[in-house]
């Protein structure tokens, strides 16, 4: 099982599942990270965290700790 955290820069993946509950999960989903959405991992911040992802035609920054909640393939 692979999560968004382990996805390499430059890869495009599809979200299969979102772990976590309540505010965390909802907030991530509100930003458009839902099942079946394509995510392109654009880059990692200069200090190694957070990462920048591209989805639904816009850019989002997300911490690796939160990216770990997102299962992808």
């Amino acid at each position: 099982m692979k999560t968004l955290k382990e996805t390499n820069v430059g890869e495009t993946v599809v979200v299969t599942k979102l772990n976590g509950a309540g505010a965390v999960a909802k907030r991530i989903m509100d930003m458009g990270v839902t099942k079946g959405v394509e995510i392109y991992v654009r880059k990692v911040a200069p200090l190694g965290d957070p990462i920048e992802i591209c989805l639904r035609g816009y850019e989002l920054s997300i911490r690796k700790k939160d990216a770990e909640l997102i299962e992808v393939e």
Partner: protein
Amino acid sequence: MGITIALAGNPNSGKTTLFNSLTGSSQRVGNWPGVTVEKKEGKLKGHKDVTIQDLPGIYSLSPYTLEEVVTRRYLANERPDAIINIIDGTNLERNLYLTTQILELGIPTIIAVNMIDVVQKNGDSFNLANLEDALGAEVLEISALKGIGINELITRSIELVNQARPKEISSVFEGTVEHAIAHIEESLESVLSSKPLRWYAIKVFERDEKVLEELGLEETLSSHLEEHIRFCEEEYQDRAESIITDQRYLYISKLVKTVMKKNVDRMEASWSDRIDRVITNRILALPIFALVMFFIYYISISTVGGYATDWANDTFFGELVAGNLNDWFEATSVAPWLSGLIVEGIIGGVGAVMGFVPQMFILFLLLSIFEEIGYMARVAFIMDRIFRKFGLSGKSFIPMLISSGCGVPGIMACRTIENERDRRMTIMTTTFVPCGAKMPIVALLAGALFGGSGLIATSAYFIGVGSVIVSGIILKKTRPFAGEAAPFVMELPAYHIPSPSNVLRATWERGWSFIKRAGTIILISAIVLWFLQAFGVENGSLQMVEDNNTSLLAAIGVLIAPVFAPLGFGDWKATVATFTGLIAKENVVGTFGVLYGVAEVAEDGVEIWANLAASFTPLAAFSFLVFNLLCAPCFAAIGAIRREMSSGKWTWAAIGYQTGYAYVIALIVYQLGLVFSGNPFGVGSAVAILLLGLMMFMLFRKSKYNEYEKPLKVKGEWTNA
């Protein structure tokens, strides 16, 4: 009765620009009740009876951020006459997510697709008729920046208010979910009377705590509805809330495919992407960041801003206002207490603070420009890793940097931090960084007792920065700062060319709000302190005293001095100097001068070095320095804290924490210093070790609070308006 139109939309959708062009100069800025979220409203241009209510930029109507709660409460309970929903045409998919939720409120809504000029330049186009049909609301294309379609938007939104009913709300959900929601609607119909049925039904389906609390459904009904929700959850193998979000986005993706014609020929990356590739590049990002920060610091603190402050302080307030008033008072022989109060008390005190205003405007101008460009979001992206370890945000870097010049604009610069918890924490810790006005104190003590060693100044910076880190880690684990309701997911908006009118307006709003809010507290404290300093009991009656040694302040100093005895400076002169440091930190030097009977002292107080060397040991002097570096900042900074916290309680908490922390650190330094320099181990040393141990415990203990556990609390909970 006038009508109210609310303006809602995502952050970075151009909402501020649209609000500015709809309302012109008739804006009123305040706060939403109970929270520090900014509230702006204004009159619609050419329509005095129409109020435009600007709502916070949000992505969703969930109850998880302050901005969302404020918006929800306003829309659902106060129900404006109409809503203008502005959406970014270059980012239709995510923007429509909020739109579908707004439409469920059943308030007449007009949708303004913004940045249509950029969309057209990209070669994309929309089928507006299809979009209108699907959403059941009128859609207009506008460009807030270029002024395209604004007039039509104004006319159409006024017509909208006068229309009888909004159109039927189109259904976003499918299958069992739609069935369950329809069922909930039926059950709620009698309970809700005039409230928006669809909105409440969906919220009940999502098990939204705030709505359930508000409705207070009967046990039998709620368990019956719960069955329906469970049934859906089992079918979709997901939580109700997630099912709703999923289906919304599914509906929107399908909808966007049918209404948007993408230019498939356009393959090359946009210029915004190309800029970003350089600016947040793994290798170049940090040097560019350092360069930008240096530029901001250089302009606002070292050069232009510095000159402006010097001019305002020395020339404007010093010579022009105070000098001329003094001459005039002398010529007209005004009572000496009155001229003293006005010239020394009010103009001296308030002037010392207002002198920073020009500098602040310059700083705010630069910050607004970088914010408009979109660089601030990148700053957070680049620095997040370091700062979140101390419970701060990547954006805390700018306030800290500015505070090394002056804490007042530093605190005001916290405005760019969206997260309330991070903002409060930054405000509380940023004045630990030694500001320019603390440097004369350092110079005085270094010169008097340490042979002018540069190590003292260096240690001042280490103590300051160290205190920020230590406080961040300690506070992060305490209840008020523990956990955060939402994870750090932040949009990185496309780069924009800043619009001059937006930049100027933002600069003015920030500067003016400082003058207005901070001014009062500064004025009062300046008057009180002046009175204590200038009056004393002589020959049995209260009167103005020439000699500061007999002033009320000196009497208070004698009274309070024992408190500082454990820190090594129980001398009342040191106490009084600390107090006058509240007006402006550099006053500490001048006060020592007056108390030692030297009329005029240089900035580093070279004239009184011998006096200080006689009454302080080097250790006591260092402890005095530590205390003065870390304790409550000057009144100007306290005023700024009051302004930015928007809460008396939080202001006191900040000052109390800073002073308490300063006391503990100075005590540890002095008492342990005594032991190390060969003095016997006493009660003081035991207390110091105990405090040190306690601090270590607070630093290294595991936080009791799970990062994500704490629910969002908002004063004046969700009530039926």
